[in-house]
């Protein structure tokens, strides 16, 4: 039995706020994972994955020396930390939604 590979299998992450902008950073566990994330995690795919959690744009930045990708999500925190009605008004767990994203094959072997 196989299950789809997720971003969480290749990277860990952290997210936070700057006003109504949320940044989601990913750090790949190894170079192969980083290269794969660079190929597959386009700003467009990430934007679609967040759906209506993000009302603005998604921009991607690369930090190859630490195998990190940084996604900047605008209008993503319901007005920003001081105004947001969300439980996660500071965007602290927004990264976990990206870790859930499924990647295109090949699939990994499951238990």
């Amino acid at each position, binding site marked *: 039995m196989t299950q789809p590979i997720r971003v969480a299998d290749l990277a860990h992450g*952290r997210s*936070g706020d700057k006003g109504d902008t949320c*940044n989601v950073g990913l*750090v790949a566990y190894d170079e192969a994972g980083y290269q794969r994330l660079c190929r597959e995690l386009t700003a467009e795919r990430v934007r679609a994955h967040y759906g209506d959690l993000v009302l603005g744009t998604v921009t991607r930045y690369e*930090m190859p020396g*630490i195998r990190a990708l*940084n996604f900047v999500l605008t209008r993503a925190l319901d007005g920003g930390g001081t*105004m947001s*009605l969300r*439980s996660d008004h500071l965007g602290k767990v927004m990264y976990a939604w990206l870790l859930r994203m499924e990647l295109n094959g090949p699939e990994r072997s499951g238990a």
Partner: protein
Amino acid sequence: MKTVKLGAGMAFWGDSVRPAIDMVERADIDYLCCDHLAELTMSILSKQQQKDPAFGYTRDVLDLLRGALPTCLDKGIKVVTNAGGANPRACAERVIGLAKELGLSPVRVAVVTGDDIRDDIDRLMDLGVPFTNMDTGEDLASVRDRLTHASVYTGCEGIVEALEAGADVVVCGRVTDIALYLGPLIHHFGWAPDDWPRLGMAAAVAHAVECGGQATGGLYAGGWQDVPGLETLGYPIAEVSDDGTAVITKTPGSGGRVDVGTVSEQMIYEILDPGNYLTADVTADFTGLTLEEIGPDRVRIAGATGRPRPDTLKVNMGYRAGFVGEAVFSYTWPDAYAKAQRGLAFLRERLRRAQFSCEAEIVEYIGHNSMWGSRVPEPDDPELMEIVMRYAARCSTAAEARKVFTECVPLYNNGPAGVAGVGTRPPLKELFALWPCLIPRDHVRQSVQLLEA
């Protein structure tokens, strides 16, 4: 090569003061740098100052110094903090009072001001500073009468001046987090204030440590299960070399871990474009950043650089933006989700009958979708043991927000069965919105005053 050791003492207002006290006792640091201010903090502090002119700073700094100041003076560790918030002068006077109470003398406390422009807005607008909202392009006039504060994210010049004057404790208002670290470094190494590559590298080092335990295993998504001693997490220490690179480590004998994983995760925290990390003192470039483990709990950080600082400084303005009314109810099996939905419909109908109006509202089911909202499918487990319904609304007046409470109270007795977990009347939360804007740096001048105990 001689290094200078900077310890991160606080990451936010209300943070535990124990890690800083442990650090000054166990580590041989030169500076303890404490960041107490988040985006919203200045609004809250300004409100406190309006109620009582003796307040307006983060009072946790006094708990910190009560524990740490005697050791700092003994060991020659200087403390640099932005705990002054909206009222650095009052904060410094309280620090002097504390030193006297503890019988410490001599203690020189510097006050760095110049960030607070709330009384200068008209003059500055006459000089042609529009304070247009950077995000929305709106004119300041739309919120001018509701402003709570206006503070410029100022740089490290005042801190350098205070340290040159021999200060033991430097109390600032809204200086940037990064300035708390660049100030001691420029003072110690005598770097030129336009040595951009060095300052850019040092800004990366400051970013690595400024959030305290987030660099040493706190919130570590890359393997939180394996981080030892979270309860006694040690805060990070940067051993900085003259070229601006550093080794990141932590308090000896403390919990937590410093490795490439934990430091990497902090490096991508709350940054926008890593090639343009804007600070008041330098435009840093983290693109080429590298991290290398050189020993247990020791990570070498290098590869960042910098370019000239921006001509404008960011202003943190806040304005009153209404109130939040909130209701939280828990429902039990059987049919927990259906009950919660019926409870919500009950509340909405009661609010309609009370002619309730709001600017925005949210419904969350805690334990199910409170983090990712509509991205989470509806619960379909008939055996669901419980669910918590949370309703919150943003209203322009306190009276309107209070209706959420009064209209949800009948859910105790008159709504669907199986309700629990209802608390007492929650305090209404007043909202402060941020008004991000810019000011040319020529209009901002820091000044330093020295107090002595």
